[in-house]
């Protein structure tokens, strides 16, 4: 129905741009929570890719949908563990800036 109107490359452009927006955030942010937010954006751009490939190129299969479901699950687990680590770090360092947590750097 809407497949003739929008070619697959335009959806892939959206997901590419979103991925590199997340990468920009990961490069410029120094705060752990905002870096986690950038990672969520990057994971979501990958999910868009899986769904678009599944719908446009292999509509008789459902594998892309399952990959998306598992990525969402793992992203939820990852966010929960990351926030537990952030809260623990805040308790010991009173800051969640990555520059302040350099004990294991050298």
């Amino acid at each position, binding site marked *: 129905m809407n497949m003739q109107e929008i070619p697959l490359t335009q959806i892939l452009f959206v997901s590419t*741009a979103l991925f590199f927006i997340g990468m920009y955030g990961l490069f*410029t942010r120094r705060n752990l929570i905002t870096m986690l937010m950038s990672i969520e954006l990057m994971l979501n751009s990958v999910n868009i890719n899986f769904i678009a490939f599944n719908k446009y190129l292999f509509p008789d299969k459902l594998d892309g949908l399952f990959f998306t479901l598992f990525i969402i699950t793992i992203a939820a687990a990852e966010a*929960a563990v990351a926030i537990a680590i952030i809260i623990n770090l805040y308790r010991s360092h009173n800051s969640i800036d990555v520059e302040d947590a350099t004990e294991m750097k050298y």
Partner: protein
Amino acid sequence: MNISSILFYAISALILGAGILAVTSVKIFRAAIWLLFSLVGIAALYFWMQVEFIAAIQIVVYVGGIVVLIIFSIFLTQNSGKEMVKPAIGKVIFSALAALLGTAFVYNLIVHYEGFKYISAKPFNSNVEEIGTQMLSTTSYGFILPFEAVSMLLLAAMVGCIVIAMRPNNEVETNTINKTENN
């Protein structure tokens, strides 16, 4: 240009605009809210692609779970009205250049790949019945093994979170002693 493509461009503008604001906003709470809008836009894109189940999961897990978790952790660790330290201007320029060049490079590859031009004409059936049957099927193309593995992963992550975020015992005791001394 019909209504479907107009919808697609509106949804894409919402996703990318909110995404850019989420990584550039100087107030951390606003960044979290822009991330929320971006994730809602991605759910709208899934609705537009007629994969309603994934869109519902996206809203339930990301908007209802992860963003709320992020906002909670902002309230626990940050002074949310305060502005964050701005990154150095050189770093901003080079990161933006890297992101733009990366986008241009990957989009160049996508545009020139022939395989993306021939879309399949088969019907796309993604109702919940199909998804559920295939996910819990033990035959080939069934996804029961990753399903079980991911359930173990979720359990391990839950236990790990509690262990990491739990206040150590001796710290609690020192706090109680300090409080009694103050009294």
